[in-house]
């Protein structure tokens, strides 16, 4: 046998093995009485910072729930697929979960794009879908089988405007990133500004790879009667805005969005970050919450568990997955069954559930159930988060 034929044979065999493994993967695990729940997450690819902690959280808590006896006496079986942030892949994988794996409920969808691509499938199949993405389009208009756990961009705008109102600031300059996040939040902020008596006096944008925002900020500084600046954006853009803002010596308060709520923002922006305010989840300041805060127990427990298991700092995105899974499990327990429609009805009746994002009170018109108290207004002082009272 020549080397060539040997290698060819090897290649052919490995392909056969792959096919065989696929076939066994499909038939395995059908015997035990289990409740199958599915998840499609963006574990790799550009949105991996969302999908990775979500995946870790789901796996960890499903194991814990099973160790404690499962749900309604049955074990949970979690099937996770990676969409790589691609809406088309997400759609195919969701079809697979529904048709082939025959799940009873889904917790997943890291991005608004992948979620929206999967929504029609769950609607047709009448299987409840709890999304972990931020976009308001997911729950507006309400789709009977679709829910979500994170706060929306609009709520972040409202929280910021509420704080501005309290400080007597009304003339605001907007500088937004042109990525999906910045774009969507800018639109929501423009929509709700009027309701809070806020006037947008400047509206600038920057590209995701820009390294200097001085020109846009100079335009904003020159706006008549400027009282505050808000920067909806994500990634390193807001850190550059914050630095340029300090370099230009602009004297009004700077607000960032919940998109920068991570320690790396403070590290990147350095001393310029002092005094910057932003709305964020309680998870970020878990240990600073007063002991009588009703959310304290949940966020401290989740933070401790996640950091002990994975040895890395907790993120709010993993928290969304925690909330989604717990709402689902809670609903299954109340419904006393694993029938998709019964689970859906029970999810819609969720009241007083305390999650990492805040207290959840669902209703037929509100499939998120969070209000503005879910957000905490934080200020950066001495290189750390402080809760603004």
């Amino acid at each position, binding site marked *: 046998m020549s080397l*060539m034929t040997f*290698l*060819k044979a090897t*290649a052919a065999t*490995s*392909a056969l093995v*792959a*096919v065989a*493994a*696929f076939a066994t*993967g499909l038939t395995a695990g059908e015997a035990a009485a289990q409740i199958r729940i599915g998840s499609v997450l963006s574990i790799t690819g550009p949105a991996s910072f969302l999908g990775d902690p979500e995946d870790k959280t789901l796996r960890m808590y499903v194991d814990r729930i099973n160790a404690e006896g499962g749900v309604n006496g049955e074990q949970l079986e979690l099937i996770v*697929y*990676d969409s790589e942030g*691609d*809406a*088309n*892949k997400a*759609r*195919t*994988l969701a*079809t*697979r979960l*529904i*048709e*082939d794996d025959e799940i009873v409920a889904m917790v997943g969808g890291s*991005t*608004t*794009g992948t979620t*929206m*691509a999967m929504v*029609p499938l769950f609607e*047709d199949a009448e299987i409840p879908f709890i999304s972990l993405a931020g*976009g308001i*389009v997911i729950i507006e208009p309400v789709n009977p089988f679709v829910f979500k756990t994170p706060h929306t961009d609009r709520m972040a705008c409202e929280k910021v405007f509420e704080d501005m109102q309290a400080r007597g600031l009304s003339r605001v300059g907007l500088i937004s990133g*042109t*990525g*999906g996040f910045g*774009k*969507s939040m800018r639109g929501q902020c423009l929509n709700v500004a009027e309701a809070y008596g806020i006037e947008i006096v400047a509206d600038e944008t920057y590209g995701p790879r820009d390294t200097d925002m001085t020109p846009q900020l100079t335009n904003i500084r020159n706006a008549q009667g400027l009282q505050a600046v808000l920067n909806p954006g994500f990634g390193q853009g807001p850190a550059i805005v914050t630095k340029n803002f300090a370099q230009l010596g602009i004297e009004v308060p700077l607000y960032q969005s919940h998109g920068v709520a991570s320690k790396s923002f403070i590290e990147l922006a350095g001393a310029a970050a002092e005094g910057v305010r932003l709305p964020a989840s309680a998870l970020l300041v878990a240990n600073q919450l007063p002991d009588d805060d009703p959310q304290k127990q949940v966020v401290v427990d989740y933070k401790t568990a996640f950091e002990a298991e994975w040895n890395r700092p907790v993120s709010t995105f993993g928290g969304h997955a925690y909330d989604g899974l717990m709402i689902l499990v809670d609903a299954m327990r109340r419904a006393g069954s694993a029938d998709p429609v019964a689970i859906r009805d029970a999810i819609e009746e969720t009241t007083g559930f305390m999650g990492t994002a805040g207290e959840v009170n669902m209703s037929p018109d509100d499939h998120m159930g969070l209000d503005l108290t879910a957000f905490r207004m934080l200020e950066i002082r001495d290189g750390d988060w402080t809760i603004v009272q």
Partner: protein
Amino acid sequence: MSAWLMQPRTGGLLLLAAVMVAIYLAAPNNFYLDVAIQIGLNAMVVVGLNLLIGYAGQISLGHAGFFGLGAYASAVLPVHLGVPPLAAPFVGMLVVGLLAFLVARPVLRLKGHYLAMATLGLGLLVFMLLTNESQFTGGPDGMAVERLRIFGERISGKDWWYLITCVMLLLSVWLTLNLIDSPTGRALRALHDSQIAAQVAGVDVARFKVIAFVYSAMLASLAGSMSALYSGFVTPDKAGFLHSIELVIMVVLGGMGSTFGGIIGAAVLTSLPQFLTVFAEYEHMILGAILMAVMIFLRRGLLPAILDALRRRRLS
């Protein structure tokens, strides 16, 4: 009779149709049909692209751009311009055809790396347009597509779409095979071997390159429109660079210059990630290894290599 059956245009098409029926009957549930539909849609693009790459010898790294334009045509036209959803794919096809025609002459004067760069740029431009014009396209998060209705009936079932995809794929294969077997096809093949020789023999090189380019772009656009109508949602990813590369790999993997080979390439590359989800973390590694093995040992692509092996066995 048997010679007639061995012709790609008759025997090949019959075989393809038979495989389609077999898949439909064998599919245990709708998930398999979904994958088959995706394969069919990719195959439509690949069949056209193969004419450009395999026959005319011109590379395009921007075909996902045409696919994306087609997809957004069926999303944007009904919502913003009131075009009926059933007509949108064809309006999209015409617009894409016109665009391809306009850019074809200047772009196809380039060769090798330069042609690759120019088509790459074209694809990127489309991608940026779809991402940035968010008031029309919904931006990076994409937009929903109105469901297709024929005589008031909502076409959303997998069975329907499988049928539509199969018919369209068969049609495009038939059309392509006819084109290959015509003077145009012979001119394209001459061009592939040597542009200068073709020119000397009296072939209008530029004209035939443009024909292949426009034809493949329109086919990509149609497949894009169908994919958008089928999935009910579009995102700019469909027009992305990676998708362009995927399409070229399907052509090369299946066999350049082999229409049915391209379909096999599309089938392998579309379904393999589904098979490999069992290995989760190793998915990309295994996929890469398989591609490398094929490229090293079956350089002409899957189908031509298999046919060669069969022919050799028969001779010996």
